């Protein structure tokens, strides 16, 4: 069906533009940034100028007003070249801007969104050392003190939260108990530089090495109640809704990575000769490429369709879990075959296959592991309603 089937002319132009940007601006820097485990302020600035950082925000906030398919294409095309830059953009839009835009009041939106559309970053702090898949086990607490709230606790693995251009993060905290003993959760907007709040860069990552990942510590951190996102007690719902959309951008990263690994593997396989013939002509190799191509075709069509449904306002909890699960497992297969097809070279840093192989693994873990996606799907189809 091809890359652009069913897309509008603008969406096609947008893809071509982002692809060119990724090839010309990002590709030449990827290896060095990965090697040095360095976040690139220069590339981020250029991505902001291109309009990637306020992708789906309306113009009134300085955004690019993209429909969801277009936004997903941006992430996909970035991930085709570099998972780290795709991560900066996807996390910022889906997890950083998303909750502020969907649940923020008009003062909060006016205060933060224009800056977040034009070069500043915002994080989303859900995961804690003891609360990943089991987000309900969140320990971070907020206690009311007059008009303020005092936050204590810590967060881990938070994307974009500790760069020099980070404005702040949305922090999920327990604010009390509901009737029946269930925890009550509330989201707080915590700005970097707030007293009692520290955001520290985490190092030593296997993948996404030029994306910023942070550990957050809140020690008697005082924030005014104006910084509550939505209403007290809305936190968990907001987080779940944010993840429904966010999963589509992780899916886009899987699709883009699979495409990148596939393009790379196909080209190499047609050039590399053993026993007098290109290795792509040996059926066992050809069939690997056929499998990846099949997966990409199916993934792309399904993902874009779900994005269109999201644009129409439909609920997509199960579908976005399917997108995320399918695309991340596709990326796994594509990267694995890519390394295999390159043989020894596939294991060397000099070749992109090696980086694809490392970068894909996050996709099966971040924003809900593959096991959790299967849980979401199996719940939606009623497996446990017996």
């Amino acid at each position: 069906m091809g890359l652009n089937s069913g897309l509008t002319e603008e969406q096609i132009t947008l893809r071509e533009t982002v692809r060119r940007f990724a090839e010309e601006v990002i590709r030449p820097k990827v290896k060095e940034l990965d090697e040095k485990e360095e976040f690139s302020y220069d590339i981020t600035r250029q991505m902001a100028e291109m309009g990637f950082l306020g992708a789906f925000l309306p113009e009134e906030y300085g955004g690019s007003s993209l429909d969801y398919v277009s936004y997903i294409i941006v992430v996909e095309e970035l991930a085709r070249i570099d998972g780290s830059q795709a991560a900066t953009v996807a996390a910022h839009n889906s997890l950083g801007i998303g909750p502020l835009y969907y649940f923020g009041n008009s003062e909060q939106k006016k205060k933060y969104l224009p800056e977040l559309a034009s070069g500043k970053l915002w994080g989303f702090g859900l995961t804690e050392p003891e609360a990943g898949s089991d987000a309900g086990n969140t320990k971070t607490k907020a206690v009311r003190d007059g008009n303020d709230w005092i936050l204590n606790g810590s967060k881990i693995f938070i994307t974009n939260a500790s760069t020099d251009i980070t404005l702040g993060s949305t922090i999920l905290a327990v604010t009390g108990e509901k009737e029946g003993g269930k925890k009550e959760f509330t989201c707080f907007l915590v700005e970097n530089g707030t007293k009692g709040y520290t955001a520290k860069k985490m190092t030593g990552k296997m993948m996404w090495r030029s994306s910023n990942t942070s550990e957050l510590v809140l020690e008697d951190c005082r924030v005014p109640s104006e910084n509550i996102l939505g209403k007290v007690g809305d936190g968990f719902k907001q987080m779940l809704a944010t993840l429904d959309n966010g999963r589509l951008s992780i899916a886009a990263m899987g699709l883009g990575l699979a495409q990148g690994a596939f393009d790379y593997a196909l080209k190499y396989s047609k050039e590399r000769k053993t026993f007098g013939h290109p290795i792509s002509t040996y059926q066992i190799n050809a069939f690997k490429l056929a499998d990846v191509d099949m997966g990409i075709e199916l993934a792309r069509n399904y993902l874009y369709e779900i994005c269109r449904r999201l644009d129409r306002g439909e609920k997509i909890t199960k579908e976005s879990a399917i997108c995320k699960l399918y695309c991340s497992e596709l990326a796994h297969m594509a990267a694995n075959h890519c390394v295999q097809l390159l043989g020894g070279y596939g294991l060397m840093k000099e070749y992109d296959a090696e980086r694809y192989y490392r970068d894909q693994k996050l996709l099966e873990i971040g924003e809900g592991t593959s096991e959790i996606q299967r849980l979401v799907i199996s719940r939606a189809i009623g497996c446990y309603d017996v």
Partner: protein
Amino acid sequence: MNILVCISRVPDTTTRILVGGDGVSIDTQGVKFIVNPYDEYAIEEGLRLREKNGGTVTAICVGPDAAKEQLRTALAMGVDKAVLVKTDKYFDSYFAAKNIAEVSKEMKPDIILLGRQSIDFDSFQVPSYLAELLELPSVSVVSKLTIEGNKVIAERDVEGGKEILETELPCIISAQKGLNEPRYPKLPDIMKAKSKPIEEKQPVEVEPKVSVIGMEIPSRKRIGKILADTDADIEEIVKSLHEEAKII
């Protein structure tokens, strides 16, 4: 400043070209078309001149309806207006130049910018035709342009050095790689380009001055001469590098 930029629709540089059934044109099936890469320098230079001096940049393309796609790319880059002189026929450089000249006569641009060549037919003719038809000075293959008042200073790369020329507005400048770094269209501008109008004009019909009578894909046959390291062979290698390949 009233700036006119001419752009052409050409097959993507990575496309594999096949000759069509008629033997005189390419098979456009499955071919991706882009803005001629040299024209991107012209667009960028136009935008920079406008940013410095104010005014408007108009992009013009002679071509089929589908060339609106390339005009929209120009609009997304920041061009103010777009004109399509619409034709579905095969046309030569003269036809293109004649039609651009007709529009220029109404528009009276201060400067006409275009790429040094279109990478499809590589005829290099439009800038010179235009200069002749409009009786304007023209400088081709320009890699640096400075305009102060009416004075135009254009640099050209020549074998082993630079040639610096001076002329006056209005004039025609054809762009060489290196003239500038063309900008990427920004996402919001891509989304908005669709709603900007493209003015369509009927072409002035003129007989082509040249026509294509045949197209062939270059044969990929190699000579396949194998030479080793014997003295005779080495002599032969030196001789062929000198006389056939003309490298030494």
